[in-house]
């Protein structure tokens, strides 16, 4: 017993803390795109409904606002856990840097609160407000989602490009420039990239549900309209994302050369560096496997000097200031996944655009619908991969150039217990979320009745009706 206690007391908290942070963030980030972009799709449907007296669009808008409330509520609790975790897992990080790093989260609070309030108003408003007034109460949801993500990503970008503070000789923050903290050098591109990603992921996710429905034979107008609204927005965003991503990669080349070397799998500093697809780095610094496209990495890093561009390799950094071999391989693989899937999603969008341009209608072929049905999950994977590039590529730094992860973590050895509990709880949460959303959709397909008191944030149930009695309704 006492040996067991001793073994448990000796558990290193750092890997568990990392694992928990990564797991909870990776979970939360799936809900984020829905919270950010679904309101926008809903408003498009709402606008169509009002402008063209479109019954299908109206039904879509009403239902989407309900689904949105469920995913928003799950997003809210998982986000709340994240803010606990900053302190629970990284107390030393927050103790030293909270005065700067914490600032964006103050603004985040305003935006998310606004979002929550207006989601409620919007759901309340279906039967209580005049139609156009009601439409306008949806607009703040869209804006708050965008500004809210921009604030959070500003905090993440600050970890990549920490600015806006003055340190004294002992390393304590003595002065802060909030403006520079929020608008740090990495923030504009990273925030743009994430917000666009939110629209891409949200759009493909929603569209994939309707694509699946069409594959199962539900090819009515309702499904088409639902598909077209979501898919068109996502498709329009894909080319923009490629341009922004390219700019972001060049920012990394200029500012985080070790991460860039990991992304491009460059062991030694050189010019005329090939772009290696797949492949892996070995501990002795050689690269094996993969396909090398000669000179492309150099050329992409700075087209003006072309293949002569020098790319710093991993050997340019001391071993304790760059990612480990394993981390390099993770970063590189994730990079290939993000860029590869991003390109595929772009091609799918081109297909869709071409058919519209030629036939003035959406593509109807089975293969297109199959691809579209897969696009939601693929987009989520793309986004997760992008985050892994950012986060693992920054290793071993938590604050780039200033603080390492192992100096930031908690000393509590019980972290692994919380980690296990969190994984169990989140798994249940994820499964239930999907089941509940499916249940809502089945119910609506059967009954087609519209009540607005069955969504979280929705109005209270009418007086005197016990919840159980609702069961009798068809």
């Amino acid at each position: 017993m006492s040996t067991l206690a001793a073994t448990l007391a000796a558990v290193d908290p750092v890997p568990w803390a990392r694992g928990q942070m990564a797991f909870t963030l990776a979970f939360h980030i799936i809900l984020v795109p829905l919270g950010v972009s679904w309101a926008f799709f809903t408003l498009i449907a709402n606008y169509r409904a009002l402008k063209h007296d479109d019954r299908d669009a109206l039904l879509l808008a009403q239902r989407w606002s309900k689904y949105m409330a469920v995913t928003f509520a799950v997003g809210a609790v998982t986000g709340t856990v994240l803010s606990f975790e900053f302190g629970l897992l990284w107390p030393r990080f927050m103790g030293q840097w909270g005065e700067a790093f914490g600032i964006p989260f103050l603004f985040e609070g305003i935006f998310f609160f606004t979002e929550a309030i207006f989601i409620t108003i919007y759901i309340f408003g279906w039967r209580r407000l005049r139609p156009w007034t009601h439409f306008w109460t949806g607009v703040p949801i869209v804006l708050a989602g965008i500004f809210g993500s921009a604030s959070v990503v500003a905090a993440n970008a600050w970890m990549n490009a920490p600015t806006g503070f003055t340190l004294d000789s002992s390393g304590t923050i003595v002065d802060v420039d909030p403006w520079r903290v929020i608008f740090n050098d990495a923030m504009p591109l990273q925030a743009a990239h994430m917000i666009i990603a939110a629209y891409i992921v949200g759009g493909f996710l929603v569209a994939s549900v309707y694509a699946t429905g069409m594959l199962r034979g539900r090819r009515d107008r309702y499904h088409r309209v639902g598909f077209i609204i979501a898919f068109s927005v996502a498709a329009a965003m894909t080319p923009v994302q490629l341009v922004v991503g390219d700019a972001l990669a060049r920012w990394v080349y200029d500012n985080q050369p070790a991460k860039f070397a990991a992304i491009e799998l460059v062991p030694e500093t050189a010019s005329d560096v090939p772009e290696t697809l797949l492949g892996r780095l070995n501990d002795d610094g050689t690269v094996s496997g993969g396909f090398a496209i000669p000179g492309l990495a150099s050329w992409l890093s700075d087209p003006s000097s072309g293949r002569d561009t020098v790319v710093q390799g991993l050997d340019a950094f001391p071993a304790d200031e760059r990612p480990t071999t394993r981390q390099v391989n993770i970063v590189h693989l994730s990079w290939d996944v993000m860029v590869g899937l991003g390109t595929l999603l772009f091609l799918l969008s081109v297909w869709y655009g071409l058919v519209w341009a030629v036939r003035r209608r959406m593509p109807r072929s089975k293969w297109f619908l199959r691809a579209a049905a897969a696009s939601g999950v693929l987009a989520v994977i793309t986004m997760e991969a992008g985050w892994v590039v950012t986060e693992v590529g920054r290793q071993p730094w938590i604050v780039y150039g200033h603080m390492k992860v192992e100096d930031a973590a908690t000393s509590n050895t019980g972290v692994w217990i919380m980690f296990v509990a969190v994984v169990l709880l989140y798994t249940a949460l994820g499964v239930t979320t999907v089941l509940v959303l499916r249940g809502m959709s089945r119910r609506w397909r059967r009954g087609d009745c519209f009540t607005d008191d069955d969504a979280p944030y929705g109005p209270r149930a009418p007086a005197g009706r016990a919840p159980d009695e609702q069961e009798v309704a068809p």
Partner: protein
Amino acid sequence: MSTAVAIVLMVAIVAYAVFAGADFGAGFWDLVAGGAGRGARPRAVIEHSIGPVWEANHVWLIFVFAVLWTSFSQAYASITLTLFVPLAIAALGIVLRGAGFAFRKSVQRVEYRRVFGAAFALSSVIVPYALGSIAGAIASGRVPAGGRAGDPVSSWVNPTSILGGVLAVAAVAYLAAAYLVWDARRLSDAAMAAYFRRRAVAAAAAVAVIAAVGVFVLRADAEYVFDGLTGRALPLVILSVACGIGALVLLVRDAARGGRLLAVGAVASIVAAWGVAQWPYLLPESLKVSAAAAPDATLITVLVVVGLAALVVLPGFVLLYVLDQRGLLPEESS
């Protein structure tokens, strides 16, 4: 400047106690409402009374964290290092509760509703207890300054923390019962109004007993705060007691209005009294607010954000409130 931010912090804590407290308390009454048959009617009232922005109430807590980690980051590090266990329990409890909330309204089958309802109700009790014990740990000076860890167990398993936890559960139950009486009346459900009135009175009695015991606990275990409560913060304590008694009288006499407001006043002023009692310390007797504070620019940002929040969030809140009230007009609720 640090004083202004400390006041903001206190206001946010009070807001969380009052808004989220009423929700947690509703969960408590849900838990003790009995089996599916007997508990159906009170649960219907509870379901009905649950505030519209509900889980968003946690934004107050997040805001408390954000203010702590920006403005008093070293103290924040000490708190999270020392009180890892109750904070972790509170975090997990909030997930359970939020999920129960999100899903219960959206599923129709009775069994499912029961599972989500149980998750929701149980965590409604655990979370206030954990948060109350954290308050007790801080008040009794068990969190050291300087980003160091205190004792991982005795920091929150001690007389003051237990007092804090139990008092928190009782206080939110009282608060919620006072709300529920009012809601039952709005539904013109006289039987339920009486049901919750009895419970409100019982909860008030429980709070009174716990508080009376608490006086001795604090005197023995948390001297600094005890001195503050009987000295500087005495007016607030008296105000709280007066509100509590007033609310009780109104409840017993079944008065039409005022009971709810006084109950809120009682809880708000006792939480504020705690803050005043430990002034000027953030962590009693080891860290003063002024010494803990971040550079001025950060503190100014906090105050600016508060101003912006008032401009941006308040109008929305008012609109929501108005709609909520309007939505309950009887002719609409069919």
